[in-house]
């Protein structure tokens, strides 16, 4: 859980050279997958396909990550749910209250299986109501909701709810029960014996990154973030195919929120649940959503699209306004840094001889990057000074980016923050693999935009983005 934000997809210890930016990959996938229409139903397969390349080289699945194990589990899980998996279809659902207010107005959504769908919008947009209609905490006035093709009203409400994990804002832990008993609630309701339920609970505590020592504590003894983890574990306890999350992270501070989001994505990677996630925070929506539904006040759908598409081509002024001004920069998170042309010419390894130094200085770059014996960046030295013997004055390198695994946004950020205007690329061990200039990054952004445009024929907003991104560069 303490791993940096971008790490969970790849997992620690990965030494893969095929630097796949999970974000970009994911987005590309969603873009295909989410094209409205029946085709989306096939999305389950994507999971299985996904697992393949990762398992093959064994690179990402280095021992300890348990990914291969979880993927197998997930595959089993997917199979047990049938080929097509769960899919929630919301069909022109309206919720009107007796006092006349309309919370949700003719909403239709197809929530794809095995992915995270985020409902986002300002307060009063009916996002929570929509979520609560899925487990019938709220009954719709008209329209219908299908789960796996069957109307949710066909089964007893308690059965329906027990098949869906439910996580809410303040976790809603039972104050009178210990952590382990909180998590064991649904299994116990399903008739598991106490020992098995507790065993399962402890297993889940580990999964959500909770220290087992907390098991016998009571909720009030936990921090907000820990409580929220318990909430997630409790929702997962009976292994429900669907997870409903109602602003689960909005009551914790930004740092904790970020780690919880990361944790959720990691868990999702392992379990492949169908998650419906409600938030009012568009950044959160973009960070974790495979699909994002933007709702406007009055309970109307404004746009339903993958986050990348949302950023590149907002459907209207409302969505654009809701996204905020820097969506160009933010969208860069969806472009992998693998396409960047790295150069090793200005890199001067420790113990290099004068000739190497001269070559580095002559590379055309104004600065030379010195590395230590392990190949980690030490600092920038002026190329012109070039004294091989004496120790030159070094400028700090700032934070390097992990080539391939981190996005263009990270690369750009490194370049902007670097005193030399050059970003340092490292591998997962922190070893320098090359450097890249702001100009080169700008070029990469432009070509990535162009490629994306060719790929999905998205609207002209892309160009504006690219221009804006270029301007920053």
């Amino acid at each position, binding site marked *: 859980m303490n791993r940096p934000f971008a790490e969970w997809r790849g997992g620690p210890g990965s030494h893969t050279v095929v630097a796949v930016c999970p974000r970009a990959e994911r987005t590309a996938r969603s873009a295909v997958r989410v094209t409205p229409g029946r085709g989306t139903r096939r999305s389950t397969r994507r999971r299985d396909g996904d697992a393949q390349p990762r398992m093959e080289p064994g690179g990402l699945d280095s021992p300890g990550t348990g990914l291969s194990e979880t993927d197998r589990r997930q595959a089993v899980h997917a199979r047990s749910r049938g080929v097509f998996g769960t899919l929630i279809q919301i069909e022109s659902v309206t919720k009107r209250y007796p006092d006349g207010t309309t919370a949700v107005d003719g909403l239709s959504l197809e929530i794809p299986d095995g992915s995270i769908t985020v409902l986002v919008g300002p307060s009063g947009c009916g996002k929570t109501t929509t979520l609560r209609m899925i487990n019938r*905490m709220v009954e719709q006035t008209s329209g219908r909701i299908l789960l796996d093709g069957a109307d949710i009203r066909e089964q007893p409400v308690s059965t329906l709810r027990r098949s869906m994990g439910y996580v809410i804002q303040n976790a*809603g832990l*039972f104050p009178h*029960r210990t952590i382990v008993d909180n998590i064991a609630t649904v299994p116990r*309701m399903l008739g598991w014996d106490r020992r098995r339920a507790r065993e399962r609970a402890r297993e889940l505590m580990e999964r959500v990154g909770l220290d087992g020592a907390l098991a016998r504590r009571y909720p*009030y003894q936990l921090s907000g973030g820990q409580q929220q983890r318990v909430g997630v574990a*409790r929702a997962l306890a009976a292994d429900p195919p669907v997870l409903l999350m109602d602003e689960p992270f909005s009551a914790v501070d930004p740092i904790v929120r970020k780690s919880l989001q990361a944790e959720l994505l990691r868990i999702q990677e392992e379990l492949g649940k169908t998650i419906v996630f409600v938030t009012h925070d568009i950044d959160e929506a973009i960070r974790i959503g495979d699909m994002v539904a933007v709702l406007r006040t009055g309970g109307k759908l404004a746009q339903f699209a993958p986050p990348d598409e949302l950023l590149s081509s907002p459907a209207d002024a409302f969505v654009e306004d809701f996204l905020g001004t820097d969506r160009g920069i933010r969208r860069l998170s969806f472009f992998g840094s693998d396409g960047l042309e790295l150069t090793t010419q200005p890199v001067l390894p420790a113990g290099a001889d004068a000739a190497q130094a001269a070559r580095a200085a002559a590379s055309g770059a104004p600065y030379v990057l010195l590395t230590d014996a392990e190949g980690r960046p030490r600092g920038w030295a002026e190329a012109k000074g070039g004294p091989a013997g004496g120790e030159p004055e070094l400028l700090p390198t700032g934070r390097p980016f992990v080539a391939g695994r981190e996005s263009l946004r990270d690369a750009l950020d490194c370049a902007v923050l670097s005193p030399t205007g050059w970003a340092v690329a490292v591998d997962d061990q922190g070893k320098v693999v090359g450097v890249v200039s702001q100009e080169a990054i700008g070029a990469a952004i432009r070509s990535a935009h162009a490629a994306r445009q060719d790929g999905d024929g998205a609207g002209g907003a892309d160009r504006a983005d690219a221009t804006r991104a270029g301007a920053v560069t």
Partner: protein
Amino acid sequence: MSLFQFISDFFRDNANWHGAYGIPHRLLEHVEYSLIALGIAAGIALPVGLVTGHTGRGGNALALVATAARALPSYGLLVLMFFWLGLGLTPVMIPLVALAVPPILVTTYEAMRTLDPAPVDAARGMGMGPAAVLFQVELPSALPLVLSGLRSAAIQVVSTTAIAATVSLGGLGRFVVDGLYQQNYTIVVGGATLIAGLALVTIALFWLVGRFVVSPGVRGRR
């Protein structure tokens, strides 16, 4: 201190410890009356408080009931009930129950109202039925306040049961009333001490019960 002298005289008098007029028997009577009154009151007030608190309706009506019941003088009600109903346990139970209902009712209602809605929502979302939500989630969390209402009622009932003696019933009030009639201050003070002692024991008892039935998770939070 002369008061102490009276008290120790009372407890040292062997005659006060035996028979139908002795301390043990009077104490049992007192506890019996108190338990009956408390039982009836809890039987009325707990369900009503739970339901009204659960639904959130009737809060203002409850406030009225509480004020009105507080305003009724128990002893006066007892005398009135004696006139209307004659001798017996019923005329005693009416003022005692009237005394005990409001604290239980009000605290139960408040306990249910001030519950954190999140766990309840979560419980419903997990597929718990209304009864399960009430007994497994709401009640355990509301327990400290509900218990304090019961304690409040119990203390008042134990104290007030003394008036039963004014309409010829037993209980520890017997010592006080008889002593006042017989001009025997020793008995008066002895009985009064016993009543106060019983009230304090009641506090201790509820404290103990709280230790056992209230989850540490709820207790720790308060």
